[in-house]
């Protein structure tokens, strides 16, 4: 059975991985290296406060579905088994969660998860200022709202990007859309990181910095079941 968090932070390999997360924006705990010794929820609680929408379970199973089989208003309903676009998770929350944790439960499809560091855009003053000026409309939600793609707060710079639910809401956003999409395509082309899944593997990403996506699912590929938990550093802000 999986272990809890007591004394877990004293584990040198976990400490190293956490440092990896803070420095590079992601960490991958391979089941071959004993990651199954810690369960997903315990790890989430080590990192921050696990949060969830009231109508969605805290630990949410993610299974590829065709457009027809997917739940209404989900990414799968839009893209089905095709490739997802690079995005940050929960971009439809007023304050998107800081970290997203995935754990592989079953994976016979060999479909990886792709991640890329958006810091080349976020740390470029001109690009970031340009992006910060644009206003975006969050749609396909019960309470649509306007927001920024970049928010500078006391805990650092947060990036919000999901083309499935964000459309330009200012002339600057409309003018910049092509350029921003091109910059994102460029980093995804140049420096993508491929996470190959094995049952028990855990991936943690800094959702304010890293974009992620999955390639298309092979038509006759085997099952691919991941579980996901959102974690926020401050649930009240």
């Amino acid at each position: 059975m999986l272990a809890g968090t007591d004394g877990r932070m004293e584990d040198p390999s976990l400490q190293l991985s956490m440092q990896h997360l803070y420095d590079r924006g992601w960490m991958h705990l391979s089941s071959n290296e004993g990651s199954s010794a810690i369960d997903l929820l315990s790890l989430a609680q080590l990192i921050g406060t696990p949060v969830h929408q009231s109508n969605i379970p805290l630990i949410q199973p993610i299974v590829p579905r065709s457009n027809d089989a997917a739940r209404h208003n989900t990414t799968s309903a839009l893209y089905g088994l095709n490739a997802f676009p690079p995005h940050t998770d929960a971009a439809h929350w007023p304050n998107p969660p800081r970290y997203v944790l995935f754990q592989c439960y079953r994976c016979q499809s060999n479909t990886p998860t792709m991640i890329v560091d958006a810091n080349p855009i976020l740390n470029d003053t001109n690009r970031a200022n340009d992006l910060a000026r644009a206003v975006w409309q969050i749609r396909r939600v019960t309470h649509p709202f306007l927001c920024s793609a970049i928010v500078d707060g006391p805990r650092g710079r947060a990036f919000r990007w999901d083309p499935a639910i964000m459309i330009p809401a200012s002339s600057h956003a409309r003018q910049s859309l092509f350029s921003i999409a091109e910059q994102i395509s460029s980093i995804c082309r140049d420096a993508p990181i491929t996470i190959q899944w094995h049952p028990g593997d855990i991936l943690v990403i800094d959702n304010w910095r890293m974009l992620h996506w999955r390639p298309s699912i092979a038509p006759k590929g085997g099952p691919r079941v991941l579980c996901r938990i959102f974690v926020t550093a401050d649930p009240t802000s």
Partner: protein
Amino acid sequence: MNNMPVNQSLWTHDLLWSKARAYMGRAQDVHRDDVLFPFWSSLTLEFLARAALASVHPALVADTSEPDIRNILHAFGRTPKLKGFVPKSAPMNEVIARCEQLIPEFTTEMARTCRAFASARNEELHSGGTPFAAIGEGWLLRFYEIARVLLSFQGKALTDLLGPQEAMAAEKLLAAATDEAAKSVNKTINAHSEVWKNKLPEERTRLTSQASKAAKGHLGHVVNCPACGSQALLQGEEIRQQPPVLENDVIVIRTLMLPNSFRCTACELQIEGHGRLLAAGLGAQFTNTARVEPLDYYASEDGDDEGFDFNWNNE
């Protein structure tokens, strides 16, 4: 609490700030002589004010007139028990009052202008009137002045709201207005100075002596009149009060003040408004220092001016 459902409010700073930018964009998309230009600008100002409050915490945007704390709970991401709860934010008049308390540079004059904008917006939306057709000149300058203060409080600048080109034009307009205010106030000072010089020396001595006696530290901040050099009083509005401290067995309360009115009893020069005072070289913030006996401080709730003394040096 280890795990919690998300119930994030729509009063977060980024959402309100984004709405301000979106409305500003709408204003910029219409002709400058279109009534929609000041209309969208008035809505921009409203959301800049709300965003300024939310930059401290979304709870500052919550309506507090309800008999419970339902709206404050909502701002903290908690769900009140009330069935069919619809979060209610503070009305604009209250938002302006909160900004006045919270933001040091947000003056009473600015609050008055914001209320005028809000009133025009209400008339536009709720009556057959078209108030923005009669808004007159000068509103854009006041809009920029207030926007700059509200933006600065939330760590932003005019360029973040208007874009670099329009921000540059706005800064030029503000600088020109400052120059104009300086010219106007200097003209007034020079006129009083001339009248003063034409008085008999004995009369000047008598008036200066009287002014010196009248300019007591407990009645205002004592400064030298820029027209006649006599001692005169500067009044201000409270920006922030520091926590009381005990010094030599006396409780000392220091309050940071923003000058808003000057009057010299010798040459009768009067200057009203912080902008004009700034142009006259009297706009620097000053500290009002009150010294109170501990017994009086803890025993009485009534205000008592005795014991107040204004510092001589501007900060």
